[in-house]
């Protein structure tokens, strides 16, 4: 009697344990069988198509001839690849000057942002000083300050210093910390075991040594995240250059496109405009694809509490 029941019970318990395995596997973040994610995949592919559309549209339009651009239905792939549009776009403005200015601003901003915010965040996360957490509330509060309220006095200040029409007003503020990056880095630094830092302190390491030798190498994903955010913000900044840079010799690419369009207001060559836009975005796209893995890790591992 028992023998007839035994396989049944063991089978059902096997069933349960398989279910539990399935639950554990999902909970561990391993894959589900392909059919169970089919619907989710369909949605994600549709979303991907939608979100790739602007980039795709821009790059395809940039390669079409004037006639093909006006053609209907639109060709999904250019019939004739007009790489000449890129040459025309570059020649339509002092592209190299604009590119160099954008590159100088972006590189300086990235380096300054990463260094200053890292040291500041380290102090808020890893050094235990009285009043620290209260002051951190002030950091968070500045996050919500709309910048227009500082716009005019800042312009006034830079004007008095004779630095309007130079790149400095767009670079120097990056050296003085920014609430969002401090917040991001602090979240990450909080995960470094304090015991490790204390051990180094007991061994006589100075706080600077700990910052550069211990904390900095550990925080690479978070630093890449800050670097990319800072690079995107600096490279794509429109209002800053619009306000501070008037001469063509100091102008950036973001304003360059606008000039390009105004000059040709009557007869805009949209394919050239798209070519120029694509050239502006390209460095950021490359940067992002190279560091994509670190970037996502930096923001997701850090958590958000």
């Amino acid at each position, binding site marked *: 009697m028992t023998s007839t029941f035994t396989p049944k019970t063991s089978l059902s318990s096997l069933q349960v344990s398989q279910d539990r395995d399935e639950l554990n596997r999902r909970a561990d973040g391993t894959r589900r069988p392909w059919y169970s994610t089919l619907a989710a995949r369909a949605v994600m592919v549709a979303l991907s198509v939608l979100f790739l559309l602007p980039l795709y549209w821009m790059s395809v339009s940039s390669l079409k001839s004037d006639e093909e651009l006006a053609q209907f239905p639109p060709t999904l792939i250019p019939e004739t690849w007009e790489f000449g549009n890129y040459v025309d776009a570059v020649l339509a403005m002092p592209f190299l000057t604009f590119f160099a200015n954008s590159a100088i601003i972006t590189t300086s901003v990235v380096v300054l942002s990463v260094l200053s915010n890292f040291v500041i965040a380290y102090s808020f996360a890893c050094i235990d000083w009285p009043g620290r957490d209260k002051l951190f509330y002030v950091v968070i509060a500045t996050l919500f300050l709309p910048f227009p309220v500082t716009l005019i006095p800042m312009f006034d*200040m830079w004007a008095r210093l004779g630095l309007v029409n130079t790149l400095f007003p767009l670079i120097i503020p990056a050296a003085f910390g920014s609430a969002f990056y401090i917040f991001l880095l602090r979240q990450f630094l909080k995960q470094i075991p304090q015991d490790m830092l204390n051990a180094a302190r007991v061994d006589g390491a100075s706080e600077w040594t700990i910052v550069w030798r211990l904390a900095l190498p550990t925080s690479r994903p978070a630093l890449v995240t800050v670097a990319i955010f800072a690079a995107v913000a600096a490279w794509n900044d429109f209002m800053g250059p619009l306000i501070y840079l008037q001469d063509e010799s100091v102008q950036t690419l973001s304003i360059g496109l606008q000039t390009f369009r105004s000059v040709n207001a009557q007869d805009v060559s*949209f394919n050239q405009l798209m070519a120029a836009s694509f050239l502006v975005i390209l460095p950021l796209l490359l940067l992002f694809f190279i560091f994509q893995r670190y970037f996502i890790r930096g923001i997701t591992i850090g958590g*958000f509490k």
Partner: protein
Amino acid sequence: MSATGLSSTSAPSIAEPPSTATEPASGRRRRRGMTATNKRNLRTGLLFISPWIVGVLVFILYPVTYSIVLSFTRYSGMDAPTWVGVQNYITAFTDPLVAKATSNTIFFALIAVPLGLLVALTLAIAMNQNVREVALYRTIFYAPSLIPAFAMSFIFIVFLNPQFGLFNQVLNLFGGPNINLLGDPTGVKIAIILMAQFGAGNAALIFLAGLRNIPKTIYEAARVDGAGPGRQFVAITFPLLTPVLLFNLITGVSGALQVFTEAYIVTNGTGDPDAGALFYMMYLYKTAFGFAELGYASALAVLLFLAGLALALMIFWLSRRFVNYDVEAA
């Protein structure tokens, strides 16, 4: 010269071992004063954040104060400011263009912020799926956020072009009329709102960080209790995401109040047709740098600042009812 001076004064003080300062022996003194370690930490801590302190003073406290002062003056940027009292504020409240710009901005915020949160949350959930190619989706969904507002605006100008833009070609295909969305005061706002959705990647990443912060064991327990995906979202995911939602909501509102670049490019700096895309920030910019009325522009900036502050405080106050900080406790 200054570099050597800096290193000789500051660097050794950090490296200084606590041996020079004697530890206070009695508990009474320890409570009243600070221990040597505490003192040293305070010194190092403040030194490390000194760039931020300078930043707050020079780039926030000084300009905010100065903005408030300027808002009571007439100032062209050339001559010295002349005191005009609350005249700028009276002008602001009676200026029809301020009213227009404010209502445009409110229209924008009311649609763009909730829509943006929805899009970002959808993307984050998609970015968090356990499928093999998830890294690819994350990259794709974030990529449009790399396209700067000015370039995205140009793409939309081409896309919405009434003669040959894809938008109208598709409309014509279905027998629809030619619509010049950018030539319509409401249409231009809607175009800018839709355009902004492609930049949802940043908010999505913050939602994603929040999603990954929810302990998997909670879902496990819910599944054992028989909760389906919908129930899990309502009972677990959403409540535990509310702190992140609050963050995205406030930054979203703050960003919406300052919408500028898209409108500036799409309307070629005019805000037309019919001031339909004249947003508050754009009017502020025109007042300051177009008409050189820096005093009046400062008053507009102060009003924007106060509105933003009031909204943020209101959201914080309301958030006490729905924001759940129990992630760790759960």
